[in-house]
């Protein structure tokens, strides 16, 4: 399996606003993608859980799944009409981090490009795993919602601890959390994907959903 990241995404992550990089940079990008493809060990784990809702002390809506309870307005909106939720975690493995550390010593410009390319590759890998989940849901007559991650909007990053425990991430895919709740290896993503019997607004994802969209320099143009 070869992960081919979207070159436009890499260029966007590098801060180019609708301008094409010069040849030297384009060559570097291809070189970095090639190195990364040799270094990655993509893994994933996901599991589906029934979703229910309750009211908290201040009558705010709470979401209950996999034995945990979360109050998050953004996640509630994302999971509206859903009867179940998939928890997923994916990683490219420790290889990209090693390459980036190396480049940080030898050639920082390459580290920057590796970083962008690895981020784009992580997205590609997420999309592929997401697609498996979508197909699995489809077979059961269900529709998926856009994936949503801890740290987006008002969904607290502390949820990482729960997801890590529930999916047994250290053992299943070799991803563990630091004390400050960062994932290592760094090219890893956790997400929630709601499923519903109603076909819905499942296209609205990406920048429009993000609370930082007004200030972010990496915002997609369209």
């Amino acid at each position: 399996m070869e992960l081919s990241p979207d070159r436009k995404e890499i260029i966007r992550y590098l801060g180019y606003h609708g301008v094409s990089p010069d040849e030297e940079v384009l060559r570097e990008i291809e070189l970095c993608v090639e190195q990364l493809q040799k270094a990655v060990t993509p893994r994933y784990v996901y599991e589906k859980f029934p979703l229910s809702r309750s009211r908290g002390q201040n009558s705010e809506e709470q979401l209950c799944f996999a034995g945990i309870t979360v109050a998050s307005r953004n996640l509630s909106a994302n999971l509206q009409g859903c009867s179940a939720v998939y928890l997923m975690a994916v990683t490219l493995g420790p290889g990209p981090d090693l390459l980036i550390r190396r480049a940080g010593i030898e050639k920082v410009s390459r580290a920057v490009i590796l970083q962008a390319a690895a981020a784009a590759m992580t997205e590609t890998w997420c999309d592929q795993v997401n697609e498996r989940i979508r197909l699995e849901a489809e077979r059961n007559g269900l529709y998926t919602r856009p994936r949503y991650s801890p740290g987006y909007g008002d969904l607290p990053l502390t949820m990482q601890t729960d997801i890590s425990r529930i999916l047994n991430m250290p053992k299943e895919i070799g991803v563990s959390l630091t004390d400050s709740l960062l994932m290592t290896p760094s090219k890893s993503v956790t997400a929630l994907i709601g499923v519903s019997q109603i076909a819905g607004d499942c296209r609205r994802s990406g920048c429009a959903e993000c609370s930082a969209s007004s200030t972010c320099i990496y915002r997609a143009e369209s």
Partner: protein
Amino acid sequence: MRDLRERLGKEWLVCDGGTGTILQSKGLKGGELPETWNLTRPEDIIDLHCGYLRAGCDIFNTNTFGANALKLPGNLKEVVTAAVELAKEARRRAGREDAYIALDIGPTGKLLEPLGDLSFDRAVELFGEVVRYGSEAGADLVLIETMSDSYEAKAAVLAAKENCGLPVCITVTFDEKGKLLTGGSVDSTVALLEGLRVDALGVNCGLGPEQMIPIVERLTQVCSIPVIVNPNAGLPRTEGGRTVYNVGPEEFSDWMEKIAAMGVHVVGGCCGTTPDHIRLTAERVKELPFREPVRKRRTVVSSFSQCVEIGPLPVIIGERINPTGKKKFKQALRDNDIEYILREGLRQEDSGAHILDVNVGLPEIDEPSMMASVVQKLQSVLDLPLQIDTTDAQALERGMRIYNGKPMVNSVNGKRESIETVFPLVRKYGGVLVALVLDEDGIPSDAEGRVRIARRIYEAADRYGVPREDIVIDGLAMTISSDTTSALTTLETLRRVRDELHGHTILGVSNISFGLPRRALINSHFLTMALQSGLSAAIMNPGNEEMMESYRAYCALAGLDPQCMRFIEAYGGTPEPVRVSAAGTAGGNSGTGNAGGSGAKNAGSTGAMGLFESVERGMAESAAAAAREALKSKEPLVLIDQELIPALDKVGKGFEKGTVFLPQLLMSAEAAKAAFDVVKETLQGQSQEVKGRIILATVKGDIHDIGKNIVKVMLENYGFEVLDLGKDVSPETIAETAVREDIRLVGLSALMTTTVVSMEETIRLLHEVKPDVKTVVGGAVMTQEYADAIHADCYAKDAMATVHFAEEVFKEG
């Protein structure tokens, strides 16, 4: 009860099966820690054990897989002690007093540094605590299992050995490609664990018996000690919220019979296996003829991911990480400039070294700490195994302990003191030991004397329980300029060690030409002669093209390079190098054995682009070449003012206007740096202006340092000196350094909102201990508002903004 060590590898032994599956069927909920049942549901745990004991297992695990102080901070001792007591009770009830209680140890769930944030020493502590409680309570052995990181496995084994005298067995988890989650292979893992002298090793979990077969095959080919195989009951799937496995007891035992016949010594099961799986497996396997483990006598060293075998193919050990005779290297050690050392390592890996020698000995530095720190940093960026080279016993132990693999150790010699110091360390940590054939009486002048010392060292290895294949004899190359027969003596020593002692040999090759002109010429020919005489490992500079040519040509000629593939890969398509016949005019690369990175590769690659354009376009090689050319007609300072600085400024302004983007900005900066380096060579001796000294650090809790590294490159380009404290740096370290070095500007970076707190704490502490210090902050989540809220003096939106602020701060004087 018979000592388990007397039975391991002598007769079939059977381990128990899955725990989680059975406890789930007894009502364990997802997310509940199974170990707490030792206190809350003791009868269920006894029942679990009895099931396996009655099924005929010989070794069974306490319910302590996830028990460590991170997961059970309050009652670890109670839980572990109870687990052993329940196992004893089960043994009584099942009438199986002959069965061994294995103190079960699983991974911590945290990744070790540098991948994660758990330090190696802390991991050893965490495991050690469990081992102490378990052995005090009466476990019969320690069984470390389901390890998927070699470094964590090493921490657990050391903890077991340092905290009890029980047998230590370990099984690790490979994926279907035969790799650990952190990249280790079967070969590298076996090298590490055999070096740590475990009593048995093997595989468990992750895969079913069928998928494990290729891994077991390789294990039995390379392993010299008893092999354990505990597969899952096939592959898992979820059924109604519950995990089920697809291989039943009958099919499982079919596979296990096959696996046992491959040369395995201990069998059992893991996830999804039940007492029925184990009963059938035990019945069928114990009918098979038993084959004792065979010693493989391979000389291997390993890194976290690679295993390098010494012989039959000779290996190259890069010698450049060594301060001897290198002014810049010494300065780097004094300045704690570890990046300089890392670059030296990466360059040698690129040049084709198989192993890297690491020597950081300098009288005025703390060598043990430096060794530990350099080894840790090197293994975080390099795949190659390391050779720890020191005469300081403490530095040797620190390096060997922190090393993620089985190292080479340089060196021991025939002196009693040396033998008594070094062998115990190799016995404990594992390693391939370089043995110098000299003793209290000095270096024997003839081969006979050297071989005699070699014999004595082999005998010492036997006494200390270090396998003879883990010794390589250094025949000692000494310059022919003082004794023209010295090469012959060395070569004869190599031959006799190979033919009479059947041992491997090593040499510091370039010593042979010390004091002579055209050293590379002598060195490369001597290398060929030594290889022909049986040399197994050459310590040399892999950047020396002539020696690499000799090495590659020898391998091709000696039938050690199948289809000459490696030779063709190195030289296919490159033109014949042009040799200049008049001695001494061929440039710097033919005179010394130490000329790095010269040779065919660089010949004739100079383009005709000017310095300004090279920098603007971000082409480092061309910028260096252009600078060299321009210096023939221009003064260095004029070149800097008229070409380098204007080019940098143009790119910098373009970046600020949004017409030049980050990658180009950095590539230009790197091209400028390459040119600066050339200019500096001609400026040698003259003091260079440093505009100011600045601390940069990524704050505590944050492990993203790319932004900080970008800023560093830019600041250095603009003439500032950067003290790079790295990532995940505590406020105290930053404050202390600022005071000690009298720093006026500190740059802090944070990527996550969660770590901005550390940034605030750092600034608070800095203001407290050094009120005149200025702070500049940056990072993905940083904004002007954030920066104001945490009282930073400047928010820099990018690297150029930091440069401008730095110029402002230091202009104020």
